[in-house]
């Protein structure tokens, strides 16, 4: 006990910050999810699980959950596959590699909101530069545009493109870190045994990237699930609920409807959903087990 008291001045402030700004709000949120809270914020008493019932009864709830799963699986999947190729390239020696590595860092540092805004502008009818490019190369034939950011389907698809783009730097760098732990002689041995580059990659390098991939996928699942700004900018001005994920729905409850009790209930559901997704990933892919 004395040893703990001696440690307290050193770890106390960090502990206080974690307890007060992370753990306490979790408790408060779970509590609020069982209360009836008026739009002006007055607590009108407990309602049991009525808020959860209302969240589940919302006709768009299940489509939103389905879309959230698509969002997480497609974004994380594409990100990992592209990052594996990118890391392989950036691990090889070629003139100018330093500058390519630097360029890959840029979307990581830059604000996701701002990166999404430029894509949103680029897709605008007539004057959007991406839309204009697609017309110039003949992929679409209407300069008035495709209504990319006006239709929930296309706006959601473009949001996936942006989400993959901003997730690539972290993922690529994590895989690069993993590649540095691959001993050169194992690859050398495979080469001597007559394995071509493709065989050496899938047979020798990829299996040794397991733990790097596990870290990258887990952190990406959490980041992508919790991502608000991309969908908010790309699909936020579309009426209805046909491009929402659980996360954007929480913010619609919070901001448009001022229903903090429903937002709390959906946040708790979101919480459980992340745990389930991570659990399924760990069970099905078994990323941490030895080969």
């Amino acid at each position, binding site marked *: *006990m004395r*040893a*703990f008291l001696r440690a307290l001045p050193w*770890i106390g*402030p*960090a*502990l206080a910050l*974690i307890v*007060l*700004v992370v753990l*306490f709000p*979790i408790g*408060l*949120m779970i509590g609020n999810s069982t209360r009836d809270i008026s739009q002006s914020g007055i607590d009108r008493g407990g309602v049991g699980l009525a808020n959860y019932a209302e969240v589940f009864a919302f006709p768009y709830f299940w489509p939103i959950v389905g879309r959230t799963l698509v969002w997480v699986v497609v974004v994380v999947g594409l990100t990992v596959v592209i990052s594996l190729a990118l890391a392989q*390239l*950036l691990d090889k*020696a*070629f*003139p*100018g590699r330093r*500058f390519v*590595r630097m*360029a*890959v*860092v*840029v979307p*990581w*540092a830059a*604000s996701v*909101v701002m990166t999404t*805004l*430029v894509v949103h*502008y680029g897709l605008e009818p007539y004057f959007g*530069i991406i839309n204009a490019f697609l017309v110039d190369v003949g992929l679409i034939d209407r300069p008035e545009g495709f209504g990319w950011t006006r239709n929930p389907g296309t706006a959601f698809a473009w949001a996936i493109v942006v989400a993959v*783009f901003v997730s690539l730097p972290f993922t690529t*760098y994590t895989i690069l*870190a993993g590649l*540095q*732990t691959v001993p*050169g002689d194992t*690859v050398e041995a495979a080469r001597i045994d007559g394995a*071509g*580059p*493709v065989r050496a*990659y899938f047979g020798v390098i990829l299996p040794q990237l397991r*733990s790097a991939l596990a870290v990258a996928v887990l952190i990406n699942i*959490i*980041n992508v699930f*919790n*991502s*608000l700004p991309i969908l*908010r*900018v790309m699909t936020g*001005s579309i009426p209805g609920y046909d491009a929402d994920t659980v996360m954007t729905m*929480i*913010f619609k409850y*919070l*901001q448009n409807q001022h229903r*903090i009790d429903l937002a709390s209930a959906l946040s708790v559901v*979101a919480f459980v959903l992340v745990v389930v997704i991570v659990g399924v990933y760990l069970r099905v892919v078994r990323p941490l087990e030895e080969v």
Partner: protein
Amino acid sequence: MTEATGPPSGSVPSGSVPVRAARTRRYTEDQVPLGAVVLRTTAGLAVLVVFLLPYLIMFFGSVKTKAQIRSVDPTYFPVEWHWENYLDMWSTPETPLVQNLVSTLVISVCATLLVLAVALPAAYYTARFRFPGRYIFLFLVIVTQMMQPAVLTSGLFREFLAVGLLDTWAAMILVNAAFNLSFAVWIMHSFFAGIPKEVDEAAQLDGAGTFTVLTRINLPLVWPGVVTAIVFTFVASWNEFAASLVLLSTAGNQPLSVALTKFVGQYETSWHYVFGVSVVAIVPVVLLFLAIEKRLVGGLTAGSLK
């Protein structure tokens, strides 16, 4: 993977063309055929262009006039370069951009200082001393790493409402500090753990107290970890969006990330100003990240990869 699809020139017998042999490293062959180098360089150039493209569009847009950027016959490059946009944009009516910039700066700087003040001692002590509750503390740190403000926003909103901190910089300083704390503790912990304990003991024999050992002996050695923690906290706070969106309601209190979304859906969005502000906001954090680029490969996953 790239060599597998090499052009015919790459089929020169390996080793006959001594190209840039000095540059090859680790498990690549001792001598890389010219074709492979050309292919890699081409692929590298393509990657470079793709990753910079949105920011080039941003930059070119920021020096166009409103008429140019909203022209039905858009040009990829600015016809005339209107650098005065960078002065004029600050007085645009949509949002008080100067105040937004000040908010972003104050929140990020204070959150970073707070993280440092709180995480550094914790990282040092947990790396150096065994005490009851140490594992619980480190477990809490890892759990926090899995949390993000977005999913807790409704709880944070009610908490700050109750204590009267809603719509203040203090609220966002606390949120940014708390949610970046775990990464800072973790990375600095792994750096402290890497210093042999004998170094500390030698200093203690010479009469140095725990605090002196930390500041004079350890700090210079863990400085790379401290810098990484500073940069990550600062950049994450600089770009934070979800919690700021809900916790800060007064336009002037909001950071740039929230303020800029107000331009979307306007009848005539001043995109050239949005991009000018974006360039101003992005350049400093990109420079910070590039300053630690070397450490992004190794240090980022310190301890989690074996």
